[in-house]
Each structure stands twice: as structure tokens, then as C-alpha cells.
């Protein structure tokens, strides 16, 4: 890459697009000096975020989340399993993050994206360690039957901050989750009881009141990228590809730090930077909480 001086000299008589492609770092730095980003955001602000619940009717709970252009579709399907002997009164949670080839030019069919299993793992770690879900609530009959919640998150459009969007969609999908009312038959198999069927449902449903999960300590995250002394919140794909140091902070709604994730990167994070990131995340948590609550109340009105 050319030195910054060289680029400075020729930048005057260069098309903006060409300059952006050839000297991306310099292009971005010129914006940063003015506390701006190429997409007209300030350094610390996140993109527009929207949450729509119940997007998939074939699932028990689902949500469509957009952060800027990054789009995530999360859906939960509930299935029955026999709980493990170590924890007979607990259900289980399986979280999978998919990057189908539609989401990004970098993903080709047949070869899963490198990022997908990593984000999958991060999501599972975060959701379980945040203590958002009490697995005991997923139990139906102790030692016999419990719910296995399959949470699948599909990335529909990858434009940076995938983890943030995925986590938000996961949380939103859980808040839209309606557990079906089920009963047990003679063979110990669980089936969906249909209340409307002439009212004489022979068997008492096992989970009459347990239709929703109580979500406590909901985790929210914010990814920032670090470049020199600048901290950019909620990067898009272009910013992520140019600035390689990223810090993802996950805080839950009670203010606890669930994860501080900085996988390498050329910029070292000093205490001050970390504190700034945490502070930005705190603000973001409040924003996201409002957005999520609005989405939930919207759904309940319907």
C-alpha cells in the first residue's frame, strides 16, 4: 500500500470512488478527522435498527431483525426430548447460526462460511452464560419429557456486525416464543392437544400455563472497531474489512458483562478504549431494549 503522503498528493486529482478503492484507510481517516463516517453517521452511532416479531408462521417463535442492511431471521422450533439423567428437570437449547449463500458474495454453496461456526459458538456461549433462560422452564414431565428448543438464525444479508444482529434476533425470537399446549398419551409420547376439538380433550394438558418463557438478564451487544484512537460503533461490512480490530461487548439488562470479545487485531486495546466501548454498549443496550419492547407491544396489540 502506498504511503499516506503519496496518496495525499494524488488524491486531489482522483475520482472519489477510485480513491476509496485504492486508499481505503486514508479515505476513512479523512472522514474520521471530521468525526464522520462515509455513510453519514457519527463515529459512535449505530445504524437504524428494527425488529419484527413472528415473521415465520411455521415456527413457534421468530423474529426478523435489521441493523442497517444486515438482516437476520431467527426462528425457534420446539421439539420433545427425553432429558438427560444428570439434569432430569431441564430442557435444552440448540443454537445454530447459518450463512446461506444468498447473504454475501463470499459464501458459496456447499462450503459453509468460516464465520458461521464461530458465531454459532459465540451465540450459544453468550445466551447460555447470560442466564437469560431458565432451562427448568422447558421441562414438561421430570425425567420423561422436556422441550428441546432449536433456535436457527439465518443471515439474509451480511453487512457487518453479524453477531450483534444475530444476538438481537435470537433474543427477539425468544420473546415471541409461544410454546404449544401439549398432552401426554399412553405410550408416553407427547402430542399437541387441540383445545377447540369439541372441548372434550381427554387428557389434561401438561403445560397449561407455561406458554411463555420468562426472560431475565437479556443480553445485548455492540461491536466496535478500533482504528488508531478512533472507536467506530456498529461497523458495516466495508468498515469491518478495512479496519481489522473489533471489540464486541455484551452486557445483559442488569448491567453485567457477559462477554468482551476481541479476537486479535493490529490495534491494542488499552483500558481507556475498553471503558469507552463498554460505555457505548451501555447506551446501546438502552436503545435496543426500547426497540425490543416496542416490537413486543406491537405484537401483542395484533
Amino acid at each position, binding site marked *: 500500500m502506498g504511503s499516506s503522503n503519496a496518496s495525499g498528493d494524488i488524491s486531489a486529482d482522483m475520482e472519489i470512488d477510485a480513491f476509496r478503492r485504492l486508499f481505503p484507510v486514508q479515505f476513512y481517516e479523512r472522514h474520521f478527522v471530521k468525526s464522520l463516517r462515509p455513510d453519514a453517521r457519527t463515529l459512535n452511532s449505530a445504524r437504524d435498527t428494527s425488529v419484527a416479531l413472528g*415473521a*415465520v*408462521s*411455521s*415456527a413457534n417463535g*421468530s423474529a426478523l431483525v435489521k441493523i442497517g*442492511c444486515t*438482516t437476520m*431471521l431467527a*426462528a*425457534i*422450533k*420446539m*421439539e*420433545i*426430548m*427425553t*432429558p*438427560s439423567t444428570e439434569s432430569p428437570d431441564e430442557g*435444552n*437449547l*440448540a443454537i*445454530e447460526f*447459518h450463512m*446461506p*449463500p*444468498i*447473504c*454475501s*458474495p463470499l459464501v*458459496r*454453496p*456447499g462450503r459453509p462460511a468460516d464465520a458461521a461456526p464461530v458465531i454459532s459458538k459465540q451465540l*450459544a*456461549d453468550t445466551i*447460555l*452464560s447470560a442466564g437469560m433462560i431458565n*432451562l427448568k422452564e422447558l421441562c414438561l414431565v421430570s425425567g420423561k419429557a422436556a422441550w*428441546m428448543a*432449536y433456535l*436457527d438464525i*439465518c443471515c*439474509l*444479508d*451480511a*453487512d457487518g456486525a453479524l453477531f450483534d444482529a444475530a444476538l438481537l434476533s435470537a433474543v427477539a425470537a425468544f420473546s415471541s416464543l409461544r410454546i*404449544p399446549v*401439549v398432552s401426554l*398419551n399412553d405410550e408416553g*409420547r*407427547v*402430542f*399437541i392437544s*387441540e383445545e377447540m376439538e369439541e372441548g372434550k380433550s381427554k387428557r389434561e394438558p401438561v403445560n397449561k400455563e407455561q406458554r411463555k418463557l420468562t426472560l431475565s438478564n437479556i443480553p445485548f451487544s455492540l461491536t466496535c472497531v478500533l482504528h488508531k484512537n478512533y472507536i467506530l460503533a456498529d461497523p458495516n*461490512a466495508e468498515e469491518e474489512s478495512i479496519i481489522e480490530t473489533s471489540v464486541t461487548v455484551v452486557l445483559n439488562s442488569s448491567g453485567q458483562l457477559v462477554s468482551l470479545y476481541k479476537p486479535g487485531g493490529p490495534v491494542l486495546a488499552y483500558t481507556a478504549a475498553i471503558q469507552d466501548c463498554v460505555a457505548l454498549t451501555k447506551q446501546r443496550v438502552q436503545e435496543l431494549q426500547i426497540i425490543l419492547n416496542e416490537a413486543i407491544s406491537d405484537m401483542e396489540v395484533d
Partner: protein
Amino acid sequence: MSSRAGTTPSTYSPSTQKKKPQKPTFNDSNGVRSDGRGFYQCRPAYLKTGAVSAAGGSAYAEFGNTKVIVSVFGPRESKKAMMYSNVGRLNCSVSYTPFATQVRGQGSEHKEYSSVLHKALEGAILLESFPKTTVDVFALVMESGGSDLPVIISCASLALADAGIMMYDLVAAVSLSCVGPSLVIDPVLEEERWQDGSLMLTYMPCRSEVTQLAVNGEWTTPKIHEGMELCLDACKKLAGIMRSCLKEEADSPSIQ
């Protein structure tokens, strides 16, 4: 912080206990289907281009509960190191999300649909306009609600148009089911489950060309004639909707 992942136990999805699945009955006298449509009435279509910003072109289609996104990438370098070719390549792949179907699936590629999609679009694209390179058409079925394949095909042709790939014409696709004595167009999942036969037609209305036709089940010649007529008619209407969707997109001031 203990990792709960590991061996996932075997699970099953609780199904409704019914005595026996009932074949849907069609009241011939009034000709109304379970969702209130007439036999020859398609579901309302919602189409939108530019659904995926990362793609060269994309489209979203929603026909009732069937929801599909198609992204088009390219023309770009062929990933497979292949011989020189003076026409471009079309590469199609259809996949389902794990939650698209009633029973949770694997979310893997649907090979058969991929190949039909390829065959349906191939004839509409000017492959010689991008020699040596590949255009990738990737479809994701977010929710399966019946007539998935025709929706994918129509949506893909819209996405190709959005990506600016040269085409002779838009490809519109419609399927119909033969349930008992009656033909129902644009069937939903429940109707597809009980169909005695099916017919899917992909059509370029301006050129009046059938690019793909798949028939299954037992048909007499007059019935095939009737079915094709119905599909052709529906394709023409659908193509009109697709065209107006593209026009709207072009007229509206571009945000990007």
C-alpha cells in the same frame, strides 16, 4: 459457563393426534378452496426487488405463506477452474432454512430444485453476454407454504433483472394441482399433499415460449390442454405484476 452443547439427544416434534388425515374436500358447487380462493385464483403475490444489499441483484417474493429470497451475484470469476467458454455460466442453488418446513429440516441444498431452476432460467438469459464468467443465482426458502418451486423461479427471474443480467424476457412460473376431478391453481401445502397430479409451467410471455414444463400423475390429453391454458394465463398475469414491480423500483428515486 459449562458448555451444554455436545451430544444432542434425539428429539421429535409433537404432532397433533388425529384419527386420520383428512383429504380436503372441495365444494364443487361454489368452487371455494380452504383459504377462500376460487379454483382458478392465484394467491396474492407480493414482490420486491433489492432485498439483499450485499448481492448484485435480489428479490423477495411472498405468495401466501411461501416466502423466498433470491440473490444474484456476478457475472464474476468462475470458482471451478474450468475450460475457456465463450458463453457465460449460470449456477443455481436452492436451499431451505431449517425452519421452513413443518418438521425441522437440515437446511441443506435442494439439488432437484436447483437443477429445475437452472433449466427454467437458462433459456431466458443471454449467456453470451458474459463470456468466461459465472452468474450465481442463490435462492433461500424462508418458509414453505406450497408451490415453492414456481415462486423460486419467478423470484429468481426478478432478481436477475434487478442485477441487470441481460434476458430475453422475464420468466414467470405457476403450478397447478389436480385434486380429484378438479384442477386448482397455485396450490398451498395442504393441497399439494393430496394432489393426484401436478403441472408446473415456466413461461416467457412476451416471446410466448415455455422454458420448463413438468407434469406428474395421470393426465388425459384434453386435461393437459386445460391445465396448460390455465397456467399460461396465470403466468401472463404474474409477469405483469413482476413487470410493474420492476417499473416501480426504477421510477422511485434510488436511495443508494
